[in-house]
């Protein structure tokens, strides 16, 4: 907002971005709730308050965990209760601080900000348009003297010639020049402007923010994301997500997100059910009865994780081949997926986002899990992959999954497990056993030290057997709904900021008064919105050029512009 309507303290007390003749101008009755709300939406101070509130709230969101940390099992709520106690933890969860960025009131704040910015911008649009298209003349000598930069010159040429000379001079300088005779008919008036479009800069940059927020919101609501582990030579069937563009599905999705924001996930139905299967399943084996057209397949030909001699990651490279939908269809093309370089095909983005959970991975690990409870001493022989879904332990109701494998188990002095490169000197695997969704034991098992694994009171003994090494590539598969809107928002933001800061609106006025014979007098005035100092120099250079139109001696009249007080805005 370029200018508030009057200083603070005048009535109404708050600076409004609202112009006279705005949407609701002229009503003087006692204000209803709606009108007060509208007033708030027109208030620039409200925008600042919103920005400050958003900043503070976002800071809280950064300080409190928003996702379960690595290695923590179970919902975030339990972490909050554990970490901050029943009172504060409960309060935080009640306020939605465990999913702050998706809480309903966070959406509300963003929506209010968008509304406020839109209302303010639209209110100003009329005035901006008027200003930009303005053809405005100064008609009295006093008007000229009132301008920040002004000067009078006497020229030895006739008025028409002088006016034409001044006009073409300014046109050469890139000004748009308008001419008109003085109402009295005794003089010629000129108005010239340049860079008036810069007034659209603030408008564009504000509106673009709204566009970006809206685009991001729609993208968040309607985009699809799936994480997929893949081993070499494995292939996935990428389901046709065309159903996602049906309005019915999108409505359901939005409704679901809103319910989620209020903390009550509803029961999925119809399409949502199919969706949940697609979202949660391993795409290497989608259920056969899933009634979805299949659009294409992706095969991982090779995955390579490269390291520097110091063991730092250097590159993760997945070579994939895209194949036709059916099992008999042939390959379409191959591509290398790198971090920073996703595969984009049919609106789906395949990102290299992880590789077999950590360090040097195994394709599979053999485990012997023995139930230590003497009443039913069961032994389970299992062959598990890392990071795959949990596998049930017989009929006990417990299930086990492998979280991490390392060929060279060693802890650093801080107790963190290192993945050292080189030969496998101490292969170890980290497993998690859950009962009814709750973790009952987790820990490392070592191939070379079968007895050195678990605590005495653990319910199971997990012994690690053979394994085969190999990497898994972790791909994130996404759609980016309405990303064009976001790109457009960025473009408008750049354009708006450029216009605001790098284009300057300058206006020049001239009145050419004939003084009999081949003589005339030129009153010149100029106004610049920005960069007053450089404009002063520019103004002076125009004076020199106008003076050069005739050989006549200049006469100092009016205020010399050097002495005018210019303050930079």
């Amino acid at each position, binding site marked *: 907002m370029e*200018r508030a309507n009057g200083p603070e303290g005048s009535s109404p007390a708050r600076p409004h971005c609202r112009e006279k003749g705005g949407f609701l101008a002229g009503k003087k009755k006692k204000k209803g709730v709606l009108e007060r709300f509208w007033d708030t939406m027109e208030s620039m101070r409200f925008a600042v308050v919103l*920005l400050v509130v958003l900043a503070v709230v*976002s800071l809280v969101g950064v300080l409190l965990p*928003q996702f379960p940390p690595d290695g923590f099992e179970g919902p975030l709520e339990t972490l909050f209760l554990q970490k901050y106690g029943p009172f504060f933890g409960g309060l935080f969860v009640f306020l939605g601080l465990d999913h702050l960025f998706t809480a309903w009131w966070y959406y509300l704040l963003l929506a209010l900000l968008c509304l406020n910015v839109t209302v303010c911008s639209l209110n100003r649009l009329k005035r901006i348009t008027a200003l930009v298209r303005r053809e405005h003349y100064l008609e009295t000598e006093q008007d000229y003297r009132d301008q920040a930069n002004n000067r009078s010159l006497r020229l030895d040429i006739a008025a028409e010639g002088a006016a034409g000379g001044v006009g073409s001079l300014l046109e050469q300088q890139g000004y748009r020049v308008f001419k008109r005779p003085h109402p009295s008919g005794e003089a010629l008036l000129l108005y010239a402007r340049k860079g008036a479009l810069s007034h659209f800069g603030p408008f564009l940059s504000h509106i673009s923010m709204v566009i970006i927020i809206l685009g991001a919101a729609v993208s968040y609501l309607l985009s699809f994301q799936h994480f997929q582990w893949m081993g070499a030579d494995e292939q996935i069937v990428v389901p046709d997500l065309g159903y996602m563009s049906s309005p019915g599905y999108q409505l359901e999705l939005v409704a679901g997100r809103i319910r989620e924001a209020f903390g009550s996930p509803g029961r999925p139905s119809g399409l949502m059910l199919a969706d949940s299967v697609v979202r949660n399943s391993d795409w290497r084996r989608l259920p056969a009865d899933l009634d979805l057209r299949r659009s294409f397949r992706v095969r991982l030909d090779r995955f390579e994780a490269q390291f*520097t001699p110091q063991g730092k990651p250097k*590159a993760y490279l997945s070579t994939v081949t895209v194949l036709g939908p059916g099992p008999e269809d042939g390959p379409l093309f191959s591509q290398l997926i790198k971090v920073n370089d996703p595969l984009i095909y049919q609106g789906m983005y395949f990102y290299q*986002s992880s590789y077999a959970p950590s360090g040097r991975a195994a394709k599979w690990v053999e485990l012997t899990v023995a139930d230590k409870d003497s009443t039913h001493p069961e032994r389970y022989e299992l062959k598990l992959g890392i990071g795959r879904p949990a596998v049930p332990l017989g009929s006990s109701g417990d299930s086990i999954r492998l979280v991490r494998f390392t060929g060279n188990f060693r802890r650093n002095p801080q107790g963190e497990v290192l993945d050292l490169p080189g030969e496998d000197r101490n292969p170890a695997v980290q497993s998690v056993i859950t009962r009814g969704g709750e973790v009952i034991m987790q820990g490392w098992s070592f191939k070379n030290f079968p007895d050195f694994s678990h605590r005495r009171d653990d319910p199971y003994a997990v012994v690690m057997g053979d394994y085969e090494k190999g990497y898994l590539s972790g791909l994130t598969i996404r759609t980016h709904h309405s990303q064009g809107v976001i790109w457009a928002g960025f473009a408008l933001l750049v354009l708006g900021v450029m216009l605001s800061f*790098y284009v300057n609106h300058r206006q020049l006025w001239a009145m050419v008064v004939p003084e009999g014979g081949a003589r005339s007098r030129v009153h010149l005035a100029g106004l610049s919105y920005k960069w007053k100092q450089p404009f002063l120099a520019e103004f002076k250079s125009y004076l020199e050029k106008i003076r050069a139109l005739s050989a006549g001696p200049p006469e100092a009249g009016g205020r010399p512009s050097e002495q005018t007080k210019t303050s*930079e805005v």
Partner: protein
Amino acid sequence: MEATLFSISLWSFFAGMMAHFLGLFPREGTRAGRLFRWLAPALVIIGSGSLTALIIQRWATQGRVPISSSYEYLSVLTWFVAVFYFVVLNKVRKPLMGACISPGMFLGLVFAGMYPRKLEMTLIPALQSYWLKIHVSLTIIGEAVFAVAFVLGILYLVKNYRADRVDPQSRRKSLYLFLGAELVGMNVVGILRALGLVLAGVRGPVLVVCLLGGGFLVAVPLYLWACRRLVADGGGNHGGLIFAMTVFSLLVSGMFLGSLVNRNQQRIESTAYRIQTLDRLVEGIGGSGELTRESLERLLGEKRRELDLYLGLEKLHAQRKHTLSQEEARELIDNSGTELRIDFPLTLGEIRQERRRLQGDLVEIEALAGELGLPVKLAGLTALRRSLVDDYNRMVTSGLLPHDSGRISAFLGYMLLIAVPFFILGYLAAGPLQDRIPELEILDSLAYRTVSLGFPIYTFGALICGAVWAHYAWGKWWSNDPKEIGSLIVWFVYAIYLHARYVKSWSGTQAAAAAVLGFLLAVLGFVGNSVLGGLHAYG
């Protein structure tokens, strides 16, 4: 070489800063005054020249723009501040401007020097993108510009202060307000601790410091709330001065403390390295139970063979001039007599880095063996190891800051203690220095021009390019990562600054305060990731 260049620029900046300070005292026009007016920029020129050489050298060695570690980021940031130093000094020929910006350069390098200076030949995969250059370099330029606006804002607030118009009572009031707020804050933190909610594991004198820092966290909003009237106070602008001096002293003390903590961290790391080296010696003993000259030679011989292999690889690479594959190096590896397992392909940078590491290891092992005096029994080695581990543990646990909980509040507490003398110095110096500060209009206009130069760069570089890069690297435009939120808040503050200038009652003091606050938040955003982690925590 790099260390020399770094020292030259660090100490030139220091000398330049001191010359600037000394130059403030003699009247203008005197001989001493003229001397310092020439000497100070000359020293800064030497410093910037050597910093430029450092950056270019690092650029050449690593083969990419050096902006990917904290050390490199801060060095380049300092370089840009130096550029703006010359620009601003050229515009405003006031010695005080130089005196105000030069500490920024010195402190920037002090801070940079506390981060590991290690060369990284290979970036982690997430950073291997041309967006790194665009995003980070534009952010650096934006922040360097904001740093200049920060100095101008501080100067504005100091210049705006009219000692004669402040009644002595309100002066005292602000002090009482702060002490009162701090006391309340300490009590709040104390009660929370008694309830077992915070600082549960902290004891001893560190607890007092933690209480002080935690109290400060609680006190600041209280103080700001109570202080509002003083800040808005039209007569004298005493609140503005307090704000400026508070921010200035906290920033300086934070940098000072941060460098201490980092130095301590480096000592811990070097001890860990020593323990590792000792472990190598123990491994080299074999069955005899004694480390003799022969067994040491055997160990060193193996290392030397590895080193020779890497030297050979380096030479081979120089001939081929491209990334080495396994097949090309097969012969060298087979003939080297080592059992190294090397992951291919290798770039020249990686080979050099490993070669340097091996050279360092050799020197360290020989030095350690020399210290021990050969032959040495296994028991002697284990005893030494035990004492080193004890050292290590002591350093970790009894460091300046508590090991786990209360780290932040202890940091704030120490910061507060260190800030006090800086605050008093600044407060006392404000009056006498006022004559030397340029006029308010000039400062305001310069600050505005600075911010309107930096804001578009920051908008494009930090926010838009960041989002676009994240779109291609992480598959998300925005992840609510600490640094992202931090940059957004910084952007908000400068947006408020720009808007504030169009509202009459907000311009002047408030705008200057916003310019100061914005940079402060940018600094917090820079250090924030090392505390909070997140996607931008690259080291």
